[in-house]
């Protein structure tokens, strides 16, 4: 009786484990084989794409095919990066497939350099020809990225820069414009008066700190507004929720919050989505339309900004392939055509801008699905 139950348990556990492992392996074969049939489909699609691309822009016919490109976001599992990177959202891997390259997304599960570096090293070991990286830290990745460039691997950054160890940076919008427009949007909602706070991501993230720098500068234009604190949610939903709640408790006169991270703004919106705070503490920041639809509908958030992350990934992929093929060197003034996005010119500091930030509000949010 007791022993029979124990025996049954001892037999059931390995069976359950095998079932779980086969479920896991089927998802891995799904993710690994998604690049395999894509590359065979891409080789037939590339011939048709190449002919149409060749007719639209002469420079793209000099692009190499069959390159192994690794897209390395800050972390896996963030919907912003999944949209930016994956094939079915028209992101980086879609562009790579269209160009006849093999694209794989890889990274760690925490948005820290310690988690991202092994993924970069593995990509190098697997024979990468190009790396498209959203840097978790401006300098910590440099030994690894510099080693990659010494091996002849093209390194470009997108979304978040590592300024001293990449050939090009694909920026979603002018850093200054993102920072200043965030403050301008909130100031307009608050009638230029009130105490505000910022819920950021990781304290080391290059893009966050750059935007916050411009936010602080822009705040000086509004003497009746003040910055109470900058708190860090580490792009983790639980931590972002906790730091937002902490802000509300510590600053009872808080009137507004800016959260320039899609994870942070979603968490803050959930915290503010109560009768106590809705309309009293206003929220804006950078968010994905899908995660914000509910909060715009019930008035927790009036306006927020973003750009199309899929376009950012798409542009980054084109830039990386152009560089890897030797069609451009990333110097300022060079131009190339990024497929459906049209022509782009490289600006100072080897940076390309995708375009101005887009303001979402109740009037237009339902037109978007990401």
């Amino acid at each position, binding site marked *: 009786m007791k*022993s029979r139950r*124990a*025996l049954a348990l*001892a037999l059931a556990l390995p069976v359950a*484990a095998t079932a779980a492992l086969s479920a*896991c392996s089927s*998802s*891995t074969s799904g*993710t*690994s084989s998604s*690049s395999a049939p894509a590359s065979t489909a891409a080789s037939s699609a590339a011939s048709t794409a190449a002919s149409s691309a060749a007719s639209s822009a002469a420079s793209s016919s000099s692009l190499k095919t069959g390159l192994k490109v690794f897209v390395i976001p800050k972390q*896996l*599992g963030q919907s912003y990066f999944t949209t930016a990177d994956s094939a079915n959202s028209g992101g980086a891997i879609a562009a790579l497939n269209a160009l006849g390259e093999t694209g*794989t997304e*890889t*990274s*760690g*599960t*925490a948005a*820290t*350099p*310690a988690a991202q*570096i*092994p*993924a970069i*090293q*593995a990509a190098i*070991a*697997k024979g990468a020809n190009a790396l498209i990286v959203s840097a978790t*830290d*401006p*300098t*910590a990745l*440099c*030994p690894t990225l510099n*080693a990659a460039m010494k091996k002849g691997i093209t390194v470009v950054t997108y979304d978040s820069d590592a300024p001293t160890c990449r050939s090009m940076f694909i920026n979603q919008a002018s850093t200054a414009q993102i920072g200043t427009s965030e403050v301008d949007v909130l100031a307009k909602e608050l009638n230029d008066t009130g105490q505000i706070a910022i819920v950021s991501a*990781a*304290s*080391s993230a290059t893009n966050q700190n750059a935007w916050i720098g411009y936010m602080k500068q822009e705040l000086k234009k509004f003497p009746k507004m003040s910055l109470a604190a*900058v708190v*860090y949610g*580490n792009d983790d939903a639980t931590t972002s929720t906790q730091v937002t709640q902490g802000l509300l408790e510590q600053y009872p006169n808080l009137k507004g919050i800016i959260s320039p991270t899609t994870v942070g703004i979603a968490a803050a919106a959930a915290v503010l989505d109560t009768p106590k705070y809705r309309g009293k503490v206003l929220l804006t920041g950078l968010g994905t339309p899908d995660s914000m639809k509910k909060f715009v509908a019930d008035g927790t958030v009036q306006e927020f900004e973003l750009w199309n992350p899929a376009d950012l990934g798409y542009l980054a992929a084109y830039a990386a392939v152009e560089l890897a093929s030797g069609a451009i060197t990333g110097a300022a003034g060079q131009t190339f055509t990024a497929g459906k996005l049209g022509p782009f010119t490289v600006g100072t500091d080897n940076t390309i801008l995708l375009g101005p930030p887009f303001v979402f509000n109740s009037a237009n949010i339902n037109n978007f699905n990401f």
Partner: protein
Amino acid sequence: MSSLADRLRAAGRGAARWETGLAIVVLAVIIGGSAASPQFLTGSNVFDMGLSNGEIAIMTLPMTLVVISGEIDLSVASMLGMSSALLGVLWSHGWPMPAIFVAVAALGLAAGALNGLLVTRLRLPSLAVTIGTLALYRGIATILLGPTTVANFPTAYTNLGVNGVPGTNGDVTYSTLIFVVLAIGFGVVLHATPFGRSIYAMGASAEAAQFAGIRVKRIKTVLYMISGLICALAGVLYTFRLNTSVENNGLGLELDVVAIVLLAGVSIFGGKGSMIGVVLAVLVFAGIQNALLLTNFNQEATGIVTGALLLASVFVPNAARWIRHLTRPRTQKA
């Protein structure tokens, strides 16, 4: 009076079974890894493995002693983070590096001493104490550094994240070398000195050890202080490797350290374990994580592997006892 050889043989007979199993697993990982990817056994991959796992491996050494003595130390990653934070703060204030090393070592010893005192003098359970100091030391790291990042350490030091030890064809990281040296040192202390034997005795029964004249409280405090010092060393290595001192350095690493120590066959209840097992467990852990990274395994799920290994390492020794229980003749059935 039994000779050292007899004692080793007796200890070896009991311990050999788990360590032999581990050695087989290491071979399986090597074979499986190289089958999964031709880059697995290359020099640069060994280097990368050493970089990613060096500090974790170093922290498993004092943890082994602490666990064998019957306690646990979950604050190891926070002590790493706190020393990293102190290193960054002092460097940004212009302190000379040798003075910084002394300060960081002193902080590590103090942190370990606090752990030890809370566990031995106030007689609080070490699980609760070190969970508390896990949060406390991480908080101190945050206060020391604030939200800033210090990332301008001299290349003479940060090169340990770029270059290998000279003379090894660039394949052995400094942290691997330090781990090997420390493992030999800790192994000798654990297996061949009276100090080591008293650690086993304490783990088997603290009261019996006390009555046998072993100064349990003092030794446990010393073990915690050693843990603090080694974690401070790990913090320095970690900071230089990433050229970054930030408050969340090392966040979560204590789980990997505990997983490796338990996988090594060190009993969570104390009194059992060996240094060979720890070295083999480090190889298994690093090898599996790296092999999965080199294949296209869904990286979000590598935690499943670490967790499964941990569960297996706790389940399997008890399963042996279970099966013996099942096959016992039913004469004692009530």
